[in-house]
């Protein structure tokens, strides 16, 4: 059961990485700071608002991530795990893309 849970967050992170692979680093950096601030205060509404906006702007790449998020059923206490999985996915994609 635990291992499955682990997988869930791991795959979410992978999808987030793929979704933002082609975005520019400056853009990603802006989103990351916004997402981090939303997570810090535990503001789920704001977090998903920022994320959804970013995904809409990059609709083609974000399809898998959107599917994954909608598949995951999470409780309030898991929000932290979900948000940081996405954040770390974006951080990794940022460095893969290289600097502008």
């Amino acid at each position, binding site marked *: 059961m635990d291992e499955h*849970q*682990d997988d869930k*967050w*791991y795959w979410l*992170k992978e999808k987030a990485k793929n979704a933002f692979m082609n975005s520019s680093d400056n853009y990603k*950096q802006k989103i*990351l*700071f916004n997402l*981090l601030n939303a*997570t*810090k205060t*535990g503001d789920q509404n704001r977090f998903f608002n920022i994320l959804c906006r970013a995904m809409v702007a990059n609709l083609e790449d974000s399809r898998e991530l959107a599917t994954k998020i909608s598949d995951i059923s999470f409780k309030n206490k898991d929000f*932290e*795990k979900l948000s*940081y*999985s996405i*954040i*770390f996915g974006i*951080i*990794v994609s*940022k*460095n893969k893309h290289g*600097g502008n």
Partner: protein
Amino acid sequence: MNTTLSEQIVNDKNMDNTKLEFTGNWFIDAGMLGFVNLMEEVYGWDLAELNQRISDNKDLVYYGYFPLAYAYQNFSNIQLSKIRDPEAKKDIKNELKDIKDMPEMGEGRWTNAEDIFKNAFEHIVKKSYKLTVELKLMIIDKKEDKKKKKVSDIEEEFNKKVIEIQNIIKNNENEIREALNKKKKQKILYYEIEKIKNNGAAEKIKSLREELLKKFEETNPKNENFFRLPLSNKFFTNFLFFQPGWDLSKQEKAFYSVIKSDDSVNELKNIGKTLNKFLLTQKDFNNEFYTSALPVSMFQNIKFIFVYLLCFDEGFVKNNQNNPLPRSFLFYSPNLNFSHKINKKLKIFFNQQDKKYDLLKITLNQVIDSLYEHQSKWSLESMYIIQYDTLDNQKQEGVEFIGIPKIQAVIIMDDTIRENLNKSIPYRKKAKGKFEYSWILQELMKGKPLSPIILNHLTLKINEEYYLSLKSSIYALAVDKCLRKVQKSIIFNQDFFKNHDFIVDEIKRTASIMSLNKNCIFNLFPNKDENKRLSYELLATIKCKDKNSFLNVLSKELINKNGKGKEKLIELYIQKNIVQNDISWECYALPLIMGLVV
């Protein structure tokens, strides 16, 4: 003797054998150890010799040598200290020396237990005349004498003479005080008066002593209520031969039935608090559906059980030095030979010791050394340390019990882990240049979490108070993490029956992962001043156990880093071990801060 401890099998059938073997009940085993200690101290027999003698003639050992040794030890340790007169003390000491020598017996009587005991008891009585008389004479120093309703002729006569002497002392108090150079409130003792020449009281005391000794030798003291063996013990007043009101013949019978340990004739039917202060009372023993308390009949296969219970006190190592360590303590493992060796070593060690006051540290040092010889994991897995300061009917002070859990035992058996944890690290500043230290291995034994110590130790490093014990800290965190994981799982799962051997590999793997990521952080964050600020910030979040803030602060720093793949490793580490880990995330977070400040 040549087999390793783990190869020895204890089964019920062996209990009937003559060889001494632990039973698994620690309080009986402590007594058995006490029995071995007693025989060793009095007769100088080591465990092998004692076993040999028991197998040659067990009745002779238990009914003959044991009562002699017990009486000798009791008289020398407890009764002799009551006598204040140094000269009398010296005389009595010389007489007591002969008690332990086995008296001659006629041919053919060496196999009869009752005969052996009778012979030994008579020998004890004869050799304790002087002690008994001197203890009786001490009544002169007491102001009030509790008078019994019915007293024998000898006692009545004795009491009369005592009152007579007391009156003479009272009437001539000023003269005596002058002769002895004593101030008004100083107590006058009877033996001091004896030294004054031309004094009526002195003569009378002397003649009373001689009279009593004569009566002892001439009359049959067994039938006289006034005479009894001056045996006493604060620990086991429920053994009736300690009762002050019992005369010699009653004492003899009671002592014999104690050695025989037959519950049908013995006054003690149950093993409970009446017998040993460490046990529960009958009422408190809540296993009511099974049995009311531990009945003696349950221990029928353990021969001479009361002998062992009587020696319980002797099993403990006594600490008479002026140090803050407990007064009595015992190392217990389920193997007699091993426990005996360790306790013997501890005793020697304590006499040499003057600076190190940590009992567990001293014990563990001895245990670990001996384990190396014995290669026994099993013994360590089941070891306890029991300690107390005072233990009698009225009060039990400083009683403590330290057991080493099975899993901790597996961990310290590994050389690499033990070496790394076997260090004292500073964790708090006391004054300038002075620190409080914590021995990681000891904290582990006590079952305390290790990460708070490492957190405080790291704080000292960040404040530039002390250098960082990096390897020890990483191993401590790895151990803490693995223990937390195990403790969260079900107790009797498969790992439990596999002896937790997997945990050693897991600790080593975890430590190497932590170390690797610490190095990555070290390379990713080269700016020392910036790192210090960041480490303060991160440390504060860990102290508040605020995972969200920790991740937030760290993520913000990582966004701007580009470390040729290193940040990917860190990201994986954080994702797996901190984001998804609610149980032990601090253990994984601390090595990252170490990477910043190292």
